[in-house]
């Protein structure tokens, strides 16, 4: 893990890029309230407000040792807000950051981002949202990705592409995160180019779900898929990022109704996820995983043996292929475990059994079970 204390001891100027001096600064935080009035949509965006914090994070994200030496990366940054982190990244030398593609659609923020394009030729600002798949197709169409070097899915092989994002603090943000992880085994989205690292700033609520180990109370589908697909680590000690109000904007709400764990104001975590070279979830199997995880996690405190039936009628017979005495010991699953206690190996075995079962449901899409509200 990157230790901020050690990092702070380093002379700041050392790694600075030549362009740093020309970059127009972000207006003072005091003025943010006026410049970026709280609209509902903006209230969900916890943004770094302290330049120092931004610098620490920029280095922690991009100068990650496990990615090998920092050879000219192309960074796609989503939801940058006014660009505190973008500026900090631009302070890094071209050898580390070759190109920065910024995705932002909020007009108020764009006003602060557009000048970066003029100040530094490495920058391209795309006024589109990181939430839309269209945006990424657009990058391709515009030829912005043509200098990305494809890297095969092997140990120690990485493309020169890096995804950086402030995750929005709403359901959409959580959905995006889940979809990004689900894209890994399918090698879709940016993962077409290889094992693209993702560096993401997220709230404690999301992080606790993503990192929850087997047996934890908050263990969930996201955690299982995350664990199965990528090596995810915190890159900065979360202590360094607290208290929230010293580092982030908007300030945490006070008074009534501020208790929701999903709203801004939570402790923050900075992580980097690097997809595994070898995937437990086989290509084309993500729908099956998704189905089983969703169905079973509804009953996460129930024993697997009892929960199985809610997969499909008769799914209880799967117990045989999971725990029968004629199954080799290392391929057995303890069906008395609660659903949330199952580890990745267990899940892989469950999925194998499920896929072999001739009566598995044909329609794995979990659409709304309710045809209509009229009754």
């Amino acid at each position, binding site marked *: 893990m990157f230790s901020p204390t050690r990092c702070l001891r380093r002379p700041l100027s050392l790694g600075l890029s030549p362009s740093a001096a020309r970059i127009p600064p972000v207006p003072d935080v005091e003025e943010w309230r006026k410049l970026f*009035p709280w609209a*509902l*949509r903006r209230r969900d965006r916890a943004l770094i407000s302290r330049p120092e914090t931004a610098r620490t994070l920029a280095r922690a994200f991009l100068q990650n040792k496990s990615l090998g030496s920092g050879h000219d990366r192309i960074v796609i940054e989503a939801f940058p807000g006014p660009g505190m982190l973008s500026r900090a990244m631009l302070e890094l030398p071209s050898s580390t950051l070759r190109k920065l593609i910024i995705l932002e659609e909020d007009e108020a923020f764009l006003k602060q981002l557009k000048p970066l394009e003029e100040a530094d030729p490495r920058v391209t600002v795309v006024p589109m949202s990181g939430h839309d798949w269209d945006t*990424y197709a657009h990058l391709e169409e515009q030829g912005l990705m043509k200098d990305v070097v494809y890297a095969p899915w092997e140990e120690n092989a990485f493309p020169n592409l890096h995804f950086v994002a402030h995750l929005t603090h709403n359901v959409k943000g959580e959905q995006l995160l889940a979809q990004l992880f689900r894209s890994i085994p399918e090698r879709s989205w940016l993962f077409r180019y290889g094992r693209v690292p993702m560096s993401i700033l997220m709230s404690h609520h999301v992080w606790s779900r993503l990192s929850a180990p087997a047996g934890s109370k908050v263990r969930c589908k996201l955690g299982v898929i995350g664990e199965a697909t990528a090596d995810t680590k915190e890159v900065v000690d979360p202590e360094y990022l607290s208290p929230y109000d010293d580092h982030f904007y908007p300030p945490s709400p006070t008074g009534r109704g501020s208790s929701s764990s999903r709203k801004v104001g939570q402790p923050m975590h900075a992580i980097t996820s690097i997809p595994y070279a070898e995937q437990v979830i086989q290509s084309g199997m993500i729908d099956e995983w998704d189905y089983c995880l969703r169905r079973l996690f509804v009953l996460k405190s129930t024993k697997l043996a009892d929960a199985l039936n*809610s997969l499909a009628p*008769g799914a209880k017979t799967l117990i045989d292929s999971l725990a029968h005495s004629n199954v080799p010991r290392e391929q057995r699953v303890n069906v008395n475990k609660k659903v949330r206690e199952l580890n990745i190996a267990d899940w892989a075995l469950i999925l194998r059994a499920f896929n072999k079962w001739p009566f598995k449901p044909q329609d794995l899409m979990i659409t709304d079970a309710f045809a209509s509200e009229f009754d």
Partner: protein
Amino acid sequence: MIPLTRRNAARAVSYSRQSLPRPARLYSTPTKKLLAQESVSSSGTSQEFPPYMAQPSASGSRPLAVAEDMHDFLHRRSPYTILPTPLPDDVATPTTDYFFADSPTQDAVAIMDACLHGLQDVPRAKEMFERVRVARQGDPILDSRVYNLMLEAYLEMATNREEINRANWLEDAWSLYYDMEHGTDSVDPTANTYAIMLQAWLRFNPESKNPVIIGGAQVLDPVALLRNIIGRQIAPSLVVADRAFTTDEEANAAIKALSRAAVEMGLSRVVTELGMAESLGRQAVDPLEDVPEVVPVVKAKTPEVEVIHQEDGTVSELRPQGPVPDGEVPFNLETLRRHLSQVVLARRVLSEEVALRQKLLEQSVYNVAVERMKHQADMLEKVGLPSKGLQSNNLRAWMWEWHQKLVNRIQAELENLVVEERVIAKMRQSSNRHRKTEDVALSPFLKLLSAEKLSLITIMEIMHLHNAGGVNDGMKTARALLSVGRAVEAEYKAEMCKKNKISMPVPTTAPARPGDKSIFTSTGYRDLYARRVAARKYMEDSEEWTSEWTQLVRVKVGSFLVDCLMDVATVQRSTQDPRTGEKITEEQPAFFHQYEYLRGHKLGVIKFNPAVAERMSRDSVVETLHPRHLPMLVKPKPWLSYNNGGYLFNRSWAMRFKESREQEVYLRHASDAGRLELVFAGLDVLGSTPWQINRRVFDVVLQVWNSGERFNKIPPAVPDEPEPERPPNMEFDNKAKTIYIERQKAWQQAKAANHSDRCSVNYKVEIARAFLGDTIYFPHNVDFRGRAYPIPPHLSHIGDDLSRGLLLFGEKKPLGVRGLRWLKIHLANLYGYDKASFDERVQFVHDHLEEIKDSAEHPLDGKRWWTKADDPWQCLATCMELKDALSLADPESYECSLPVHQDGTCNGLQHYAALGGDAVGAAQVNLAAADRPSDVYTYVANMVEKSIQDDLESGNKYAQVLAGKISRKVVKQTVMTTVYGVTFIGARDQIERQLKDRGDIPPEMCWLGASYLAKKVLASIGDLFQGAKDIQNWLNLCARLIAKAIPEERLVHSFTETAPARKNAKSKQPRWKKEQMTSVVWTTPLGLPIVQPYRAVKRKQVMTSMQTVFISDPNSPSIVNSQKQASAFPPNFIHSLDATHMMLTALECRAQGITFASVHDSYWTHPSDIDQMSAIIRDTFIALHSSNVLKSLFEEFKERYADYKVPLVAIRGQFAKSLGLSPEKLGMSTQDAQLLINSEVEEGEQSEQSEEEAAAADEEEDIEFGAEAEEEEKPKPKKRKTKGKVTLKAADVEKRLAGKFVNLVDLFPELPEKGKFDVNLIKESQYFFS
């Protein structure tokens, strides 16, 4: 024989004192032809009349006279049913307990009832009874029938069960009787009480075979009993005919004993009466008595009887007229009862033949079902498929298999349960811990019915719930458990109801004659009331009392049974292994649990195994139908009370309650007070309309159904829409994948919808098949706004086009000139050609005669012109009728049974326009006369289309997709529902559905496109209906105020008395918020009280053996949802008006002898009677609206809420402003008034909106960049800007205003001014209803 033929019925039953005058037509046969001349004059029609009218109003003495009565009726000050507002759940006082029995009491009484059944556990029942009797003295839940039931049980224990304890049981009986007689419990003895006590004396008196001497209670001899009987004005003959007597001998002995007593007391009148009773019991039943106008040659003489009724309809005396003859036939109790029921009810008893099938249908559902399943299984065995129930892929065979296993399972489980409960009870006794509430023991309830019945009920209910509540191939668990529990309860009650062979009162079959208009006059109305009460008393006395169960009991019973079923029910399923290709068979559960998320809530569901689900759309499903889902074969039982009417043995309610005890209590009180006579009478009219299945249409439907092809709204057996293609690049392109998933989802949904449609059509076809050739009836009840619906859910005229196409009136009438013309107009309307003038519509039909003939003769193998109609099946039926008529030499003589419709054009707006006298609005919706019908929908659609054209220029992408596609249909529903207060979200969903239906808009565009369109539509409607809007606002404001009001007597409590300090009282809410229990209640012009049920949702978690379910307890009211109360009031009020208009029309149609049916604002009758009905529709509408409805509503509010206060804190901000308060009038300081208007509404207030709306609002945030939200978020400075001086924080304002109250009635805003439009003008409007 009793000469009770139609001719002399009136003479036979003559009435004295407060007698019932000449039998009113709704319950009995008419006596003599009144005003016969008028009937002649009103039947003549001629072609010279204006298009809809029966005759020029000058010669129409009938309509005028009736209209006058009706006008008077509607102008009277209707009596209100006013009850106390329910109290918050943390307070209890005797008065509200009186109205709202709490659940523990209800449970205790239900257990008591169950323990008494079959004398399962009388000591326990006695214990419960004594406890409730002490704790809840005077509670209406303990009426005389409960006491009688106890008496009966004691007597039975003494007689047959515990001879050792005989003296004790008798002592209990006599002392309980003593308490009743002496008014200790304010429960009066009834005929049934005296019958039981008389029996007790007869069996154990000192001279009897088994003399018992008891010391602890006073025993009364027949003389003393008779004295009490006379004292209570109960007819002794009713005592001896009471259901308590089960043998002829005892009844005869009772007659003798009472006669002796009467002789002793010198009561000659009683002696004769009893003599008459005895002789009545000796009369043979005349087999021909139900054949009208046939008088048997040889008739035994029966005394003619005079009945004396008390004020409330109870019979106090029966007097023979003429000599009492002695018969030769041995005394027969049943015969006595039949005769008495005839005279007491002054009507004829249902003839056995007519009722036979209905009785069979209702009595033996479960037996018949089991026979059929067994038969099927036997058949299969015979043809060499030995009892392979499970393998045999057949629903019926499966059900039979499950049934056999389930019966054993239930028996075994029940035995376990009994032991378990005994152990628990013992443990509790020994631990000696006093518990506040009794744990509900389940076994007494489960023992009420046989295991066979329980098993069948469970299987049938679960099968029938397939696809219920919008769950594809499944149902919500909570609903399943409740339904099964309720079905067990209903079956038990039906068994009790059938036990005593009650003779049903039926409404008369004789058509009423014109001129018979009494019901709107006060005497006529009182007759109706007295008659109904008499019939009701009679029915209640002859039924055994049963208790209502609580939700908890229902759920527990349901869960016990469903759990057993899910455990034993399995099916064999086979498939091919996709890899090896070998056939694999597995035994799988037929049903399984799952949890689904619905708007973020985890919801338990029970799902069908796909193998079973698949069968549901193909196999015969009639087995799963209970008679309460089917039409009736006889006229429904007239509504005798709010919970007695409709089906003969299956309890139905006159109103569908929305889990609201308050609604039920109001209805009960209004019913008891005799304020609902016209509502009941109206429902009886609707229920007594005879129908038949249209055989010719049925044959076509069947052919299509069996072909399995998609055809005319009949979905195909195999879904025929191709699955969306997987785009080749979706592996790596997330965008392509998203679109694919979107389409795939839509396809899946369509497939599921197809399946569920197929299932629903299956029901309709099966039911139609079952009733081919029968005359059928649909019993009706009303929803809480008073709108009438047929009770059977599957096939009825309120259903879709297919259901309607399958139905014809049961009677035929010759067309006549006008009828032929209306038949043609009807055909044009059904085809969709309904915007033109009547003449043009007739011309349209003339232009298409060839196609019509072809459609009728070759529906499937011809040109299929009819399939392109808007309502194809009804169109086909009409083509067939018209073709048949035209092929006669004289088409006008054709006897037609097809209903022809007259629909209100945007009926909600019509009522608004009439209420507000809004001339502009009136013209839009055809209240004013015009040459052509005007069509609001087209008008709005054009406005929207125009606005889209404008957007097209600016390159809006939605405009590009939607331009040119805005048909009338797209906007119709939204325009229609605007008057009912549709929200943006609602409008968007409606439009989305329409866009999807069009099929020419990419599915992923529908949602956003709909949102774009909804804004346009709502904006376009905006100014078009100003008058309606003003009224809507007024209604809304009144409702908001009412929902904030608190009854005065609660005020003191809410501020002085600190509520019982609970340790964990976490909310610091001010007390007044907890006191907001007032719902909006009003009375329709017909006297029906309407109670809005919207309250905070409070669900109780109930752990059952299978899943945890959440159920609401209607017995414990929670605070009102003021937002919902306010927003729903305008539409509910309008609905209560259209319901009233319909009922008035129904009653008037019956009075004029024409057949009537309705689907809310669509009124149906025979083509030949359309002119007459059209006149009635207009008369009733005018009568309704000239009674100044809004003013009456205002008056009612002022009276109903006279003692209510509104806390000032509750009406701050915008709300206060919109009320336009005047401080002087309210007696508050100007400063306070300022404060009110300027203070911001606190957060808590805003978050009051219901979950649904909150969820909807969330959704909206995503699409709409909330301008409002931004404003509201702008922090403090804004407040400072507005007023500069007073800047108080919400808390300070609250402090200042706390404790300040104003009278609710002073706050009501003035009524909006009424416009100039005169409703009488609609008489001239042809297209008002058309």
